[in-house]
C-alpha cells in the first residue's frame, strides 16, 4: 500500500526504477517513417514488442482518423486499414498504404491518424477470430475497432497489450514536416553507481527530445532522461542472473520517435 506522501517524500535511491522494468507483454514503441506524410504517401511502420513471458503473441494493426467516437475509415474496406502482422524477434514491420481518402480534409495543419496495435496471447482476443473468419462481418469489426479498449474485455493484463501511435497527415512542404530523431547507441561503460552500466547515446533532432529506457531484465535508473548535447548517459542496472533485452525510445516534442533495442555486450 502507498501512504499519502504529502510531506514525507524521500530522495531517489540508486537501483533500477520499477517503471522501466518489463515483466509482461508490452508494445514498447511504434516508429512511423516518415512520421508526417501527405495523403499520397505510404508509411513504413516498425512495431517493437517486448515479450518477457514468451507468449509469442499475435498482432493486429489498424488505422483510425478520429471523428468523435467513430473513425473516418468506417466507410473503407477493412483490407485497406487493418493488417495482421507477424512478429520476428519482437519486431513487426508493415507498409501502410497512402491515406488518399484523407486528401479532401488534409491541409497545412497536420491531421493526426491513430495507428492502433494489439498484441495478444494466441487464442485470447476474440477480434482475431472475427478478422480471420471465412466471411468476416466488416461492419461489426469496424465498429469494434472504433473502441479499441473494448477489445480487452475479459482479457487479463498480462495476456494482451494495446497501444496507439499517431501519424500526421498534411499538405505541408517536406521541409516543414515532422522528422524522426536520429538515435544511436555509442558505447557502454561502467557506471558511477554500484552495479550500474552507463549506456551512452547520441540524439540528433531539430526539436526537444526525451529518452525512455526499458528492459526485460533489470532496469534503468530513471524512467526518463533529458537529452544532453553530444552524448547522453543512461544508467542501467543489469539483473545479476539473467540477461535481458534493452530498449531506448527517443520521443520528439513534435511527435517523431526512434527506438533502439539490443542487449548488453558480453
Amino acid at each position, binding site marked *: 500500500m*502507498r501512504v*499519502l506522501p504529502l510531506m514525507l517524500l*524521500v*530522495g531517489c535511491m540508486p537501483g533500477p526504477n520499477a517503471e522501466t522494468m518489463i515483466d509482461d507483454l508490452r508494445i514498447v*514503441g511504434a516508429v512511423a517513417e516518415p512520421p508526417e506524410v501527405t495523403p499520397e504517401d505510404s508509411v513504413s511502420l516498425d512495431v517493437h514488442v517486448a515479450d518477457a513471458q514468451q507468449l509469442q503473441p499475435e498482432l493486429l494493426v489498424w488505422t483510425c482518423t478520429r471523428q468523435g467516437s467513430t473513425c473516418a475509415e468506417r466507410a473503407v474496406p477493412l483490407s485497406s486499414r487493418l493488417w495482421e502482422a507477424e512478429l520476428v524477434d519482437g519486431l513487426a514491420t508493415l507498409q501502410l498504404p497512402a491515406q488518399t481518402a484523407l486528401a479532401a480534409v488534409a491541409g497545412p495543419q497536420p491531421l493526426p491518424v491513430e495507428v492502433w496495435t494489439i498484441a495478444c496471447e494466441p487464442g485470447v482476443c476474440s477480434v482475431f477470430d472475427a478478422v480471420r473468419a471465412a466471411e468476416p462481418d466488416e461492419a461489426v469489426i469496424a465498429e469494434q475497432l472504433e473502441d479499441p479498449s473494448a477489445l480487452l474485455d475479459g482479457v487479463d493484463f498480462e495476456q494482451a*497489450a*494495446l497501444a496507439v*501511435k499517431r501519424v500526421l497527415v498534411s499538405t505541408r512542404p517536406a521541409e516543414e514536416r515532422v522528422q524522426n530523431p536520429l538515435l544511436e547507441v555509442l558505447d557502454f561503460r561502467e557506471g558511477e553507481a554500484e552495479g550500474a552500466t552507463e549506456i551512452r547515446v547520441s540524439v540528433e533532432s531539430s526539436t526537444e527530445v526525451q529518452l525512455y529506457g526499458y528492459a526485460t531484465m533489470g532496469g534503468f535508473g530513471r524512467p*526518463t532522461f533529458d537529452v544532453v548535447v553530444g552524448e547522453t548517459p543512461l544508467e542501467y542496472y543489469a539483473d545479476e542472473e539473467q540477461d535481458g533485452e534493452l530498449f531506448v525510445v527517443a520521443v520528439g516534442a513534435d*511527435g517523431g520517435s526512434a527506438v533502439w533495442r539490443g542487449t548488453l555486450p558480453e
Partner: protein
Amino acid sequence: MLPWLLPTLVSTALAGSPVSGEVSVLGDADVAGLAVRLVGDGSEVGAFTDEEGRFELSDVEDGPYMLIVTGAGVYSAVLDVVVDGPLDPIEVTVEAADDVEQEFVVIGQRTPPEITERVLDIKDIQVLPGTNGDAVRAVQNLPGIGRPPLNIGQLLIRGTAPEDSAYYIDGARIPLVFHFAGFSTVINSDSLVEVAFLPGNYGVRYGRTQGGVVDLRTNRQLPDESRGYVSVDLFQATAFVEQRLSPKTSLSISGRRSWVDAVLNPVLKGATGGGIQAPRYYDLQTRLLHKSSALGTFDAFLVVSDDRFRFVGPTEEGEEEETQIGLSTNFQKLRLAHSVGIGRWRAETSMIGGPEVQSFALAPNGNAYERRTQFGVRHEWTNESSGYVTWRLGADAQVTRFDFLYDVPSISTKEEGVVWTVAPAFYVEPTLEVEWVKIIPGLRVDSFWQDSGYTAMPVDPRLAVVYNDGGATSVKTSVGRYSQFPLERQVLDNGEGNPELSPSWSLQTSVGVVQKLGPDASIELTRFDSMLRNQVVGREDAFRFYTGPPEFGPLDTGAYSNEGTGYVQGFEALFKYNDEKTTAWVAGTFSRLTRTKRYGTERELFRYDQPIVLTAVGSRTFPKNWRLGARVRFGSGNPYTEVANRFADLDSRQFVPVFGPIDEARLPAFFSLDMRVDKTWEFRKWDLSLYVDLQNATNRANPEVMAWSYDYEQEEPITSIPVLPAFGLKGAW
C-alpha cells in the same frame, strides 16, 4: 415518500407552559425594556417587559428556575420559581437605582433554533479526541455526515456533494470553512459559542443550497473580564486576546499560523532538492462588539484567511526556482451586524463582504483562478411574543463580481470571463402553536440574475410540524424544497456553458423522534429521504477547483444539462449524554445514495455512498483537572471504479486506464480509535494546559482513495495517516 409526511405517532400531552407576569418599579425608573430571564439547569428563556411592565415567556418546561429581572437604572431582582404547568401571573418589584451601571443582558442570544438543527457547545467540542479542538471537525462526528476521504474536512451531508452544502457565520454565508487538507477551521473556535449543524429540512432562513448547513455562531456576550491565551500544537501556533474596553464594548483579536512548513521545509528541501514545500496557512480575526440599551447591539467581525501550497523546481535554465505546481486560497470578509429589540419584535441586520480568491499554477504555462468579490446583506424581523403565532420575516441578497480564468492546456481548453450576479431572496415563516402542536410553514423565494442574461426564480415552500408531550418525547416531521443555482460559468452563452440550465433542487422529508432519558441523556431517531432533480451534469473534463480528491473514472464530457437525478434514503440515530463532567454521544448513519447522470442511463451508487457510519465519542473530567476522552469510528469504504485493463499512448508515453463498471467496487471498511488526555495546571493569574491526542491509535492503514501503479496493473490505495500523537500546549490568562 409522501406517507412519511403523515404523523403516525400523535402525542396529546402539552407543550411547555407559558410564564407571564408584571414588573413594577419602586422609584423613578423606566419599567419598559427590562430583561426578564428564567434560568434553569442548562436552559434559559427570556423576554423584555413592555411599556406597562408586562412580560410573557412561552414554552417553559417544568422544573425549578431563577427568575431574574435586570435592566438599566434598577437593582436586579431574583425569585425562585417552580414551573409545574401553567402558572398564575408573577408579580415582581424592582427598586430604582441611580448608581446602577447599565447592564446588558442578551436575551435570545441564539437564533431561534431550527427544528432539525443539532448544536454543539464550544466548551464541549474543544476537548473532543481526534478533532484538534476544532469546531467544525467535531461536527463530523454527528449523524447525517459521511466520512470524508483522507479526513480532509469535506462535509458530506445526507448524500449531497461537498459543494452542495453551505457555511455561515451567524447566518451570513462564508466561502470556505477549512484550511487546506482540513487541518483546522478558518474561524478560531474561541470566537464561537456554538456550532449548529443542520443536515436538512431547515427553515427558510437558509437558501441557495440543496445540501446541509453549518452555521458558526459567535459569542454575542460581552466578556465578564479580559482574557487571552497563546497555544502551540502539532500544526499551528495561535494567539487570542479578548479585552473589555468599556461596560458596553469589547474587542477581540485572534491570529493563527501553521508552523509545520517552517519546520519541514528545510528538511524537505534537503531530501527532495526543492520539491514539495509543506502547506502553510494563517488566519486573523478581529471583532468589535458594542451594546447600547437604546440602539441595540453592534457587531463588526473581520476574518482574513490565507492558504498556500507549492511544489517548486528549477527553471529551464536550471538556476532559479519557480513554482511547478501551486495552489492557494484566500479571503477577507468583513461582517457588520446590528440587532435591536423594538417592542415585541427583534430586528437583525447583517452585511458581509469582501474578496475571495482561489488560484492554481502548473508550470510551464498553466494558470487558473477564481476571484469573487461578494457583498451580502440580510434583514430579518422576528417577534418573541408567546401568542399563537410568531413570525420570521426576512430578506437577503448577494451581489457578486466573479472573475475567472481556466487556462491549463494540459487539462482543458481555455475559459475566462467576468460576470456580475445579483441574487435577492425573500422569506416568511410563521410559527403556529396550538397547545401541543407547533406548525411551521415557510416560503422562500429566491431569484438570480446574471449579466449574461440568465435569470431564475425558484420558489421553495417548506413545512415542519412538531408534537411535544410536555416532557420527554417530541415527534418532528418536515418536508421542503431546496433550490441551488448553477455556477456562473455553467450558464454563460459562450459555447462552453448552457444558458438554458434551471436551478437544481431537492425535495427533502424527514420524520424523527426525540426521547429524553432523564436530565442528562436523550436519544433521537430520524428517517430522512431526499429526491434530487435537475442536477447539473456534464463537462467533467473542464478544469475546476476540487474540494477533495478529484474523481477518477470515465468522465461525462457532454454539454452541461439538467439531466441528473438522485435519491437519498437514510436513517440516523443519536444517543447523547451530557452532565457536568461528561460529554458523550453515539451516532449512527445508515443510508443509500444513488444518482443517474443522463436520461436513459442506469442508476449508480453516488461516489460518496457510505451505507454505515458509526461514531462513538466521549470525554470526561477527573479530579485535579485531568480529562480523558476517546473516539471510535467505523464506516463503509467509498465506492470506486476499478481499472479493468489499460493501453499505452506511445506519443505521451503514458498508460491510459480502461475502466470497469462505474463505482461498483468499494474500498475496505474504515476503523479508527483516537484517545486524548488533557491536564490543566492552575496558577494564580494564569492556567497552563497540555493535551496529547493520539489519533489512529491502532495504527490501522485505512484505504482512503484508490490509486494505481504507473501501469494500472496494481491497486495501490492511498491510506490514512498512521498513528499520530498530536499534542498541544496552551497558556491562558
